[in-house]
């Protein structure tokens, strides 16, 4: 809780009706017209859109282990700058987040940093090795209260192990978030397999390697009556499988990254490793299918897969380069560009895919809530009319590996309130919470 009081004046809630929001004691005290400031600091929001604070189900904070790439502090500061109030920190740290000790460490680092709520994701298998289940119960019961489990970066490809994981997490109402990548079909894979990889002579990462795992997993989830989440879905075929599964009532959710909604494998022709990512950038046809799937609800959420790397990991030959792109500070803009400005989605839809549904999937109770009196004051103010050029050197993340460098994008984050505290104000990073 915070003693700070703020009055957000004349924001368009979810891009619809205009109202004032009075924030006090970490919650939305009142929503209405022409509210009295009563000593609250006034935030003029004429023309701005108020959304529930964003929740990222897929963030790599790199700490512990790769503090040269990112720390919990820098990663969560980047998240706040991007309009986020909560992130799920993936488990592929060093050591891997496969014990209560590590997830509690990450959780505490997040609290100490104070920029957003950090919800650690627990590894499904020990050391992400895909051999035996990690201590899922201990992580669920820890102070971090882990509900999402993932070997992200690696696929739980052993079908029996995946089945057991899906069954076991039911104990805690948990979810397994699968990085769908059949390992044998993607040995040495460098980019999407297709016309461009044929030209470039880079080893292909075929769509079927993703689709076959998703098909198997939705059938497993159906068989054992569990909940499965598909990380960073990237192909048209995957969309069709998830759509089919949902029609059959299978409890599956799916995520897409901003970069897969905008960029294609044609970018690889530059051989600039900033475009090297896993799963790889796909084709135009895939991009259009992904956008349509977000619009019709087949894909539930945006997950950034924010993956910062030190400069030298990208300043090299394609084949030597690390996979991954930063994303927290460009997500809203890319979503606006790819979904809102194309007419695929309105701002209420953005709230759904970037806040409400992510919080529900990760079982985060106090995020993704309505903008209503009595709710936690997790609020993001977006200026949809803004135009800005992406300059990675200006980002809060340590990573400079944004694939959107130099691109003019719409939308900017004017303010982020995390439990009533403004982490971002007037379009600039303000400061972390100190009361958490």
């Amino acid at each position, binding site marked *: 809780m915070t003693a700070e009081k703020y009055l957000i004046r004349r924001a368009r809630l979810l891009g619809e009706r205009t109202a004032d929001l009075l924030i006090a004691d970490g919650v939305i005290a009142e929503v209405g017209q022409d509210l009295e400031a009563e000593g609250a600091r006034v935030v003029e929001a004429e023309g701005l859109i108020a959304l529930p604070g964003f929740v990222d189900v897929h963030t790599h904070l790199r700490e512990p282990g790769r503090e040269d790439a990112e720390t919990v502090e820098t990663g969560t500061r980047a998240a706040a700058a991007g309009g986020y109030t909560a992130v799920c920190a993936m488990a592929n740290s060093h050591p891997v987040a496969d014990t209560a000790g590590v997830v509690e460490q990450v959780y505490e680092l997040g609290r100490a940093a104070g920029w957003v709520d950090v919800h650690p994701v627990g590894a499904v298998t020990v050391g992400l090795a895909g051999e035996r289940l990690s201590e899922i119960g201990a992580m669920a019961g820890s102070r971090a209260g882990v509900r999402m489990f993932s070997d992200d970066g690696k696929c739980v490809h052993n079908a029996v192990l995946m089945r057991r994981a899906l069954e076991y997490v039911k104990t805690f109402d948990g979810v397994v978030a699968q990085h769908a990548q059949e390992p044998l079909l993607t040995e040495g894979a*460098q980019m999407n*397999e*297709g*016309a*461009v*990889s*044929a*030209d*470039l*002579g*880079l*080893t*292909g990462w*075929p769509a079927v390697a993703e689709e076959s795992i998703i098909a198997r997993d939705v059938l497993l989830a159906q068989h054992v009556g569990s909940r499965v989440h598909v990380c960073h879905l990237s192909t048209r075929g995957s969309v069709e499988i998830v759509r089919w599964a949902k029609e059959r009532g299978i409890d599956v959710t799916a995520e897409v990254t901003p970069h897969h909604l905008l960029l294609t494998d044609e970018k690889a022709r*530059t*051989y*600039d490793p900033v475009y090297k990512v896993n799963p790889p950038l796909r084709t135009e046809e895939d991009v259009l299918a992904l956008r349509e799937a977000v619009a019709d609800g087949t894909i539930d959420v945006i997950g950034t897969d924010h993956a910062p790397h030190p400069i*030298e*990991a990208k*300043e*090299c*030959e*394609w*084949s*030597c*380069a690390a996979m991954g792109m930063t994303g927290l500070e460009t997500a809203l803009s890319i979503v606006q560009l790819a979904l809102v400005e194309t007419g695929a989605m309105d701002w209420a839809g953005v709230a759904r895919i970037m806040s409400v549904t992510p919080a529900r999937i990760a079982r985060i109770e106090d995020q993704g809530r309505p903008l209503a009196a009595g709710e936690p004051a997790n609020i993001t103010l977006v200026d949809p009319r803004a135009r800005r050029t992406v300059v990675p050197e200006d980002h809060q993340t340590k990573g400079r590996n944004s694939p959107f460098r130099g691109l003019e994008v719409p939308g900017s984050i004017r303010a982020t309130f995390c439990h009533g505290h403004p982490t971002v104000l007037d379009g600039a990073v303000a400061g972390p919470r100190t009361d958490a």
Partner: protein
Amino acid sequence: MRHLLDTRDLSRAEAVSLLDTADRMGEVGHREVKKLPALRGRTVVNLFFEDSTRTRISFETAEKRLSADVINFAAKGSSVSKGESLKDTAQTLEAINADAVVIRHPGSGAPQRLATSGWIDAPVINAGDGTHAHPTQALLDAMTLRQHRARLASADTAGTDLAGLRVAIVGDVLHSRVARSNVWLLHTLGAEVTLVAPPTLLPVGVDAWPVAVEYDLDAALARGQDAVMMLRIQRERMNAAFFPSAEEYARLWGLTPERLRALEAAGGGTAILHPGPMNRGLEISSEAADSDRSLVLDQVTNGVSVRMAVLYHLLTGPQAPHGPDEEGHHDR
């Protein structure tokens, strides 16, 4: 032309001009003094991240025949895993004022990265990158085919392209930078290219290339080819289920003595090319490799000429139709 990274970037005019220069460079190799002063005082670095005695020797010969100062830099191993990065290597070469960099690298795209990163200003010549491109190999193949056709027609090569020439490229197209560079260059020069391979050794996406694709070598040969280019089968492919056995591969896609006899019986002047080194008995039989139809040694000879032409064009300006001859005479 600032760099030579890929044959795909070459226009027909540029390619023909390079081949014309290469033909004239070839004459230098037959002189008593096999040297031109064209690159005197210029430093060319052969930056080889991958072993390749044949290509390095060919480039080195070309550079020396043009009187360049040659530095061989063997930097085996990928940059990140072993020691110095490509960037640091490039900046080192920049700092010693290298005038051109010839790069061979196991990673596709490394030469393009070098050329476009801003780490170095010197022209970059791709001497083979991963499974992507090997432009000087394709140029020497085109030079060899052009000579072959001119010989059959008792004509001159100068200014000609390969319009209508039927060329079958046979073997491991998937992993072949030679095949890729040949596809683009032969297409640009007007040849009709047929790729012949087991489906496992063709890339997904090959249907977008300006070629015909055929699985049956006998059918492709029966349609009549002016040349067949046999690609090397890497030994490691045999353990990765691309085909059941070396014997079956040789039977179905090798240039066997039987197929050589069929070519003889059909008449016509089908030439046999191979980029080397050959696996005799696998993709090509000794009978075929050593037959009169084989242009394998012409390819090696032409390799030097083509590399001289490329260096000459990149380092002394785009067009110099009489340059080498005149300078050659001055040299005497």
